[in-house]
């Protein structure tokens, strides 16, 4: 068993790396400039601590992938400027509100989560 181990490990690693490389060959689109700015604001403010995108992130608040079409821009704008229910006022500065809304609008166009069956 032990003698075969290096060979087995090498084979496994090669196979799995080849397979997982497939996940890089995806249907990615480049972010627009506004959406990219919004993404940076999203990361800077660590929204992922409470919110998730495509299921990745925190569970304290709802998933934000399709919040643009499910709740609408007015709801989002109000939430970002004064907070809502359990979400405190995020106290955003400058153009952060607008760029975050651009990012959320972009996210909504990328797909649907959770997927409807």
């Amino acid at each position, binding site marked *: *068993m*032990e*003698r075969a*181990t290096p060979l087995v*490990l090498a084979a*496994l*690693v090669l196979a*799995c*790396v080849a*397979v*997982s490389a*497939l*996940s*890089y060959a*995806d249907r*990615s*689109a*480049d*972010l627009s400039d506004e*959406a*990219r700015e919004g*993404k940076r604001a*999203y*990361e*800077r*403010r*660590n*929204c*992922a*601590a*409470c919110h*998730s995108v*495509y*299921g*990745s*992130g*925190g*569970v*304290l*608040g*709802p*998933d934000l*992938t399709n919040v643009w079409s499910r*709740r*609408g821009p*007015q*709801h989002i704008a*109000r939430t970002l400027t004064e907070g809502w*229910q*359990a979400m*405190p006022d995020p106290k955003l500065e400058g153009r952060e509100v607008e760029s975050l809304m651009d990012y959320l609008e*972009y*996210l909504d166009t*990328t*797909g*649907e*989560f*959770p997927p*409807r*069956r």
Partner: protein
Amino acid sequence: MKVTHETQRLAYRYWGAGAACLIAGAALGILAAIPHGWPGVVSLPFEKIRPLHVTLAVGWVFLASMGAIFYFLPRMCDADWWSPGLARLQFWLLGAAGAAAVAQAVAGVSTGREYLDFLPAIAAAIGVAWICFAVNFFKTLARRPRPWPAYVWMWAVGIVLFAATLAEGHLHLLPGVGGAFPRDLTVQWKSIAGLIGSMNLLVYGTALCVAEHVAGDPGLGKSRRAFAVLWLATADALLAFARHTYAVNPSPVLRVVAVALSVAEGVLLAWILWSWTKPGGAEHEVPRKFLRGAAFWMGVNLCLGALLSIPSLNAVTHGTHVTTAHAMGSMIGVHTLVLLAAGSMLLSAGRSAGFWVLSVALPAFVACLLIAGTIKGVGMTRHGWSHFTATDRARPFLRGVALAGVALGLGFMLELHSARRASGELPAPAPGRRRRRLAFAAAAVGLASIPWWWPVRETLPSTPVELGRAVYEREACWKCHGVDAPDLAREIPPRSDGWLRAKLHDPRWTAPDSKMPSFRRLTESDAAALVAYLGSLRDARPFAWKASPAVTVAPRPAAPAPHAWCVYVTRCSTCHGYDGRGDGPAARFFAGDSMPRDFTRGLYRSRSTPGLPTDEDLYRTIVRGMPGSGMPPFAELSPADCWALVDIVKSFARRGDGRNPFVAFAREAPPIPPPPAPTPELVERGRAVLAAMKCAACHGEDLRGRSRRDGAFDWTDEAGRPIWRSRDLTRGVFKNGNAPEDLYRTIIYGQGGSPMPSFGDSLPDPLDRWALIYYLRAHADLGSKPRR
């Protein structure tokens, strides 16, 4: 255990540093649970607490594993570390990086990722330290000839994998990855899975090493089962992303393979640990107990993870605390228990009060998370609760999580504090082992059968009516109006959509003494959805031509009511306007519906004369309202008030503005001839009259009305505002009422100001008129869905 080589002392420093991270991480975990259980009570910056908690927890696992490796590798190789100097440098480098990471989290500087949320400089420092560790490890290992036990291979693969993961986790710095979506998210997921995989390998290696020492059999580490675990764990670590990524996973086949790998690996590992830690000598009793606990939790977590992979269950549990239960169950139940076993072996701990506290606290912790997550997930998918409502309903169990977390922290502290040696007695063999195994198997089968009998609704509310129902639930309308709003639909006669929308905005517009709170804070989409839901209930009610209430017109009082103008302002002006032009503040909500009447034009829908209505007509309209429009009944007004309002309404038409300088209201109406008895022949005659009058041209072939939205016509009312639909003749909802006399008036005199003409001249024979009326009443549409 004895220290045989100099550098092994470093192991204690690593393990001690890890233990400090554990306690700090547990404290932060409790702080993180507080906003979940008691939102708003204390204002805590969750966006800082979470990264700190995560960093400390991951730090505990890595530091303690490195401590175990630092201790056991020299023993196994029978030689000290290749470069003690490098080992010390690595320790201080990691310490500095750790301190910087804590400072970064406290300062609130974030790169926005869930794990390894470090600034690139800190990550680079960790990377350098890790490379030092890897070099030292492999150079030391080279001193010992092969064959190496399986756990050493696990450590080796884990070390290499972590280096690769750390690099992959920073690929987002490249524009081709960070600027592309969802590639950035996919890579993030992959690096998280790689992190979990490398942690697993390091911990499994430690577990097998400690178990081998507990069992006292050096050959165990070279057994087939151990190597099988190594291979499975390696493949699983590389493919773990396939079962952890949700929507961005490219292939469902890969996902099934990943799940199968993790199940096989977990079963095998749990089996090995369980069988290697049979009750034996009194030596290593504490590590043995911890390893058994870890084997048990591995089994539990495995079942949980397998369940979560089933798509229909995943649809319910994703994004809830059930996922957290799985993550924490493995971090605490497996990793922490294994590393506590290793630590207690290093420290030669003889007793452990902490073990029993943990045995109670950990199941409670995981159970509370599971229940809270289940409530939330089932509520959101099956009942359409909003995220906030669902979290609110799960609140008691989230509080339980925080309390169990306190117990966990206590357990860790107790465990670390104990250093006493065990007394000499052998522990008795556990009774009823076979029964326990049967029970475990039964529970496993029971859990595995859940997908077959647990009905799960997989879709979220999507139509406006479903969304409206969710809004109804969320805004707690049921607290006053009843659980399903049928009470709402039953008690109050049908109101038009525009009226409902206006009512949500300000309930006191038409009923000044209403206690209903305003819902103007609802967004447009929420309000429209709620109106759609209520409208669907209104339209779906079991159909019956509910007879329009007959109105007895009280005699006009001698003196006019003194406060009549106040009544008009508080109840009527909000829709009809202060000047009676139909432009009150609520009028804008009727935009897609029938608009409030403009009284200045002198045109009225409900009349019993060819020209203008009588006072009695206006009185009747006020008291009964106009079913099928936004005009509600005002039966609660006193007769004196009603008469005063009649005068006010008439006075608008007399306001001189050049359009209607002379408005002569009728004094009395021509009498309606008595209706004949309804017979089948008369009804048949009515059908012929209907065809002759071409009612279908405006009301549709099925008499259910036609709509401007379908492009059927482009009518406007007298003020130029669009009319959206013609009347559905089958539902018994008519602006003038649905009694035979009311229909007679409508057909003969038409509806002033609307496209409905008068058919008085076209139907000179009263029998024809009654025939048409009886035909309409006989062919009422019973029970079918109305056209909207």
